[in-house]
């Protein structure tokens, strides 16, 4: 977990209860992390129905939304996260593809 050169990717996934999209997104994210970021990721799941005020503050309107909190810059990816190449590109991990 604490190998200095390896950056930890901290993710927060906003889900809308147990809706289909949200369940899919969580599953896709876990799979993605296992494949590309083993041992260098943290996932926080936030249910918008439970934390609606924070959702509003964070400006999350579409669910599911994945937010990369660190490393800088923060990015948001909306959707079920079913396309790994798009996520790799967004995270700047293109080199890891294939």
């Amino acid at each position, binding site marked *: 977990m604490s190998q200095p050169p390896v950056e930890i990717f901290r993710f927060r996934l*906003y889900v*809308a*209860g147990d*809706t289909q*999209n*949200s369940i*899919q*997104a969580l599953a*896709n994210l876990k799979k993605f992390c296992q494949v590309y970021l083993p041992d260098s990721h943290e996932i926080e799941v936030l249910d*918008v*129905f439970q934390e*609606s*005020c924070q*959702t*509003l503050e964070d*400006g*999350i*309107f*579409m*669910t*599911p*939304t994945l937010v990369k909190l660190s490393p800088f810059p923060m*990015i*948001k*990816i*909306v*959707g*079920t*996260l*079913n*396309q790994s190449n*798009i*996520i790799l590109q*967004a995270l700047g991990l293109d080199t890891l593809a294939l």
Partner: protein
Amino acid sequence: MANATTTHSLTSNKVPTGITGFDEITDGGLPKGRTTLLVGGPGSGKTIFAMHFLTHGVKEFQEPGIFVAFEEAPKRIISNFESFGWKLNELTSDQLFFLDAQPKPDFIQSGSFDISGMLAALEAKVKKMGARRIVFDALDIVISLLPDAASRRQEIYRLHDWLLANELTGLITTKASREEISSIDQQSFSFMQFMVDCAVMLNHRVIQGVSQRNLRVQKFRGSGFDEDESPFVIGRNGFDVALARTLGRVDAKVTSERVTSGVERLDTMLGGGYYRASSVLITGFPGTAKTTLSGAFAEAACERGEPTMFVSFDSDGTEVIRNLTSVGIHLQRFVDNGLLRMISARTITGSAETLLVRIKTLSKEHKARCLVIDPVSALSKAGNELTANGVAERLIDWSKSDGITLVCTSLLDEMSGQTDGGSPLQISTLADTWLHLNYLVQAGERNRGMSIIKSRGTSHSNQVRELILSDDGVTLADIYTAGGEVLMGTMRWEKESAERVANEVAEVAAQLKKVSLDAEEAVLEVRAKSLQTELVAKQVEKTLLQRTTESREREQSRGLERMKELRGADISHTGKKVDKL
């Protein structure tokens, strides 16, 4: 609920938008606790409509509202709306909350999503502030991000359910699907139309370079509505829907009060002047003194102390005043004391509808009781032919219901012709009083004639009068008809003087005749007197004669008796016998 029968309960099922005209068209406003779809092309006024609806709720009903902006940043919206004087800055976020839901430029999408997050966030907000009204502006932006028709449909449905569950009166705006730039596909668009309880279409066309905006209520579940397209204007006070007169509207108060036309003899011709709050149409060719007649009306109105507005399309206000001064109509003094407001509408560009709204706004500001529009035919300038009729109709309707006495002039051009006598706007049928001015060319002169073509509810002269403009003002003169020909101007003057001479001659002749008759009478009287004297003399003579005869007879008989006596004859009984003897 929606099938409630009485007007009152129907109205209570509606949420007023505060948009002039729209609440009348829909008989109260948007359906309460339901969803309304507002469809229109870019720049058709969707956001303004929506904002009008929200601010009206906050200001008039203390109903907090939420504005969900998908297309524009709330800050920009607020500053854009400053020009309407709604003072959005003064509203707290508890009264009017803006949610910036624009998809960010760095938006990354992978796979399908839903709007549950937003709805959850909004729900918390709605509960917190007690919002009653909500607007989703440009929903098509977010819907179009969804990958397939099924998920689009699902999200629309989700939103609809959410609105119903929260008992919010919702307004969803979206770009029209007919437009090329629409980002929403036909399928989800028509699905939305079926789903909502009320659908309103806005369209914005440019006809011969003039922008024309129209609004149409396409559907309204459980309520009657005006189905026609109604023109609307985005004016200084926001959204203003022109309302054609619909059935069931309370008629304006009808008064039998008369107001002077400013020309004394015209008042006499009309049996006392125009009716208050009536509409007067003055038609005529250029230069037939239409402006002068309306100027006389304005002057008279100001003299009564009534705020008056003079809208001139032809020339500048100061020009009108100067020109009218030459015929003894002095308006400057009323401009100075604020009673009269001159508006030069030549500078106002835009559709007939825009002009009407401007005129209405200005007239409200001025609290005008009398209004002159010179000429109203300017409304049907290029590009406005289609709408001008409706505008003229509404102009008359509006002035009537506001109790404003309206005088319009209308130019008759060669095209519309004098033969049918109609003004280009067909407002001649709507106007209460119609004065027609024309020229009569005769003996090298052009003279102005005026006649009353119609005047509802007043007895009026059917004679043509000559209109004379002089330094002292406008006067009407009788015209002469001789041998079926109408005489005016110099010919009338000649006729008048000829008649005066003829009168004098006749008078002298009569006097002469009288003198000679007097003389004859005197002669006869003298003769009668002398004859009388003669008669008396004759009578005297006759009496004398008779008396002489009698006395002679007496003498004779006496002489005979005497002779008898002397002879000793028997005494006779009668003279005759004696005589015979």
